[in-house]
């Protein structure tokens, strides 16, 4: 954390509380996190660890009952203080997001081509280009023309007239180019389809194309491949990795699967019950895990063909986050537990260079 200037996103002492009828849930507890430009960061955690809350807080989409404490600093601005209107400027264009279920992220009653055009027109407006803003509707392609403006709200005002000839070709070419970039074999045919006509993998490709056409500096992906098959998952992850590298976009990929982290990450952050328990470069985390939870999690993955031997596992389950926990949240399941763990808030320390851990064994 010495190179503060270098970081693209810095999350400082972030605590998220959900107010629910059954009590206050501490979904994230004093989280520290840093994303450097062009970095592929993977956040790993079980269900209930707060990993989705982390993504939603970074992109400002937390539900009404959430309370935010702490700072989310993106390119020097504290995003936690942005108003709703200011957020519309940054969301999508600076920070993009891909969700787990592409079917619920895409508009079910609009053709793929139309949705792609919508994404491109926002990009054009943002760049202040002489606006050729395209609509892809039942009336055919229509073009909206408006003066260059930084305000996205004005994008829909202006003259609407039918697009033909050169304009049409230009608009379509951009759509096809993006579909080609995400390796959709038949871009012309796909643009004419509705989301339900596509497979899960194809829809996720379209989502990636739409998100990346905004040229965001940071891309959040919340379990983007969990609903997909292994082979499709491999295709999507490879595509993400390649496109990120060529566009210089930083990625925060959220997953429950340590396997995915091992295969694609530059750096891995492990979440447990709202705490960042460990943060290390990928090689180091897997070859030399420090936190007992990370160690246990790694061992619980079946390896090899040792038929009929017992898998190592962790006892118990994650604690109830409505309860105020003073010491380490992992203490009840930990084999190295001692006095220190139960009494004070456990410190987050740099145990080795670039390798952070929240555990009393290391200070």
């Amino acid at each position: 954390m010495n190179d503060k200037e270098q970081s693209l996103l810095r999350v400082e002492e972030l605590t998220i509380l959900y107010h629910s009828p059954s009590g206050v849930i501490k979904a994230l507890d004093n989280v520290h996190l840093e994303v450097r430009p062009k970095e592929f960061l993977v956040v790993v955690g079980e269900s209930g660890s707060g990993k989705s809350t982390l993504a939603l807080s970074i992109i400002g989409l937390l539900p009404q009952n959430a309370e935010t404490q702490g700072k989310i600093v993106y390119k020097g601005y504290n995003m936690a203080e942005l108003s709703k209107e200011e957020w519309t400027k940054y969301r999508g264009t600076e920070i993009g997001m891909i969700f787990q279920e592409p079917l619920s992220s895409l508009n079910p009653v609009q053709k793929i081509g139309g949705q792609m055009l919508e994404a491109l027109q926002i990009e054009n407006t943002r760049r202040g280009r002489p606006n050729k803003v395209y609509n892809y509707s039942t009336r055919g392609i229509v073009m909206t023309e408006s003066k260059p403006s930084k305000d996205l709200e004005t994008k829909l005002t202006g003259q609407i007239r039918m697009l033909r000839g050169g304009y049409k070709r230009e608009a379509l070419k951009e759509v096809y180019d993006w579909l080609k970039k995400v390796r959709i074999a038949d871009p012309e045919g796909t643009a004419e389809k509705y989301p339900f006509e596509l497979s899960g993998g194809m829809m996720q490709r379209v989502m990636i194309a739409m998100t990346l056409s905004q040229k965001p500096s940071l891309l959040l992906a919340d379990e983007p491949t969990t609903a997909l098959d292994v082979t499709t998952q491999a295709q999507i992850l490879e595509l993400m990795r390649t496109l990120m590298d060529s566009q210089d976009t930083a990625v925060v990929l959220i997953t429950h699967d340590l396997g995915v982290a091992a295969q694609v990450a530059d750096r891995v952050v492990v979440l447990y019950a709202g705490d960042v328990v460990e943060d290390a470069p990928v090689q180091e985390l897997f070859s030399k895990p420090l936190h007992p939870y990370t160690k246990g999690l790694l061992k619980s993955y079946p390896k090899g063909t040792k038929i009929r031997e017992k898998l190592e596992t962790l006892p118990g389950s994650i604690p109830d986050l409505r309860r105020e926990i003073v010491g380490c949240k992992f203490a009840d399941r930990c084999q190295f537990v001692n006095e220190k763990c139960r009494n004070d808030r456990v410190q987050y320390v740099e145990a080795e260079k670039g390798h952070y851990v929240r555990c009393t064994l290391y200070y």
Partner: protein
Amino acid sequence: MSDARFTTDGKPFLRVENLSKFFAIKSGGLFKEKKLVRAVNNVSFVINRGETLGVVGESGSGKTTLLRAIAMIYKPDSGNMVLDGETILENGQIRRRPLGQIQMVFQDPDSSLNPTMKVRHIVSEPLLPLEIGKEELENRVLESLETVGLGSEFFEKYPSQLSGGQKQRVSIARALTSRPKLILLDEPTSALDAVVQSQVINLLVELQRKYMLTYIFVTHNISVARFISDKLAVFYAGSICEMGSTEDIANKPMHPYTSTLMKAFPIPDPAKRTLLQTKIFGEPPSLVNPPKGCKYNPRCPYVKEICRNKEPPLDEVQPSHWSACFFSKEIFD
């Protein structure tokens, strides 16, 4: 090539021969031809008592339909099945329903446990058609709950009061009450976190040893399949494309699809980054209009002319190792 796949010294516990299950789909118009989804197409295998057959493949490859056809939840369209020496299916006709002898555990405990029923009633349900006395029934329910590590304190609970792992334990307890010989497990750990998954796998292995249970374990998770299975069957588009001992297939796959599937699986080891290096083409085929010839040919990097015209048979390419590829030996030897 021997006809009895996985020939055994004694009698096999379950013999499945040419099992098929097709679904008719509506195609709109009155005079349009009926179309068939060939969900499970001519599948044959044999399992011994106390063994686990792992079934891996992509979604839509027919894994779940296979289980449901074996359990006769779906009436098979053709094929023979012999369970423990007794013919239960002959030429597609059900001869006898093996009541209580075959049980299933489903993927999603939230939708396979009735939310309005208490745990005691959920677990006792398989016993109802067996006409067992009330006292015996109580005992059996308690016994199976204890076997899966849950006590009588769970009797009066509803599924919503349980965690994901506990729900899956209840599903397993329900499958055990009728003391079945064969348990069909349909992705039983896919909805669980890694730690809970390892607890459930340990439980399943322990139960198998204790009661000599036979499992058919369907999963898309290759490392779970490798860990728990004695034999593996790899499904592609409704048929088995490779079958053999887990050891053989894991160490040396003989079908291009299996080989890709293995490389695409994310292993939690950054020193073995095979996933990003693997070039994977295309998408799983449609089961209504499957490709002509080998169903894998549009995605296969080794495709040759013959693959587009002729469907390769499931041949024994090495002792007790079957592969449905014309070029198994050329590619992998």
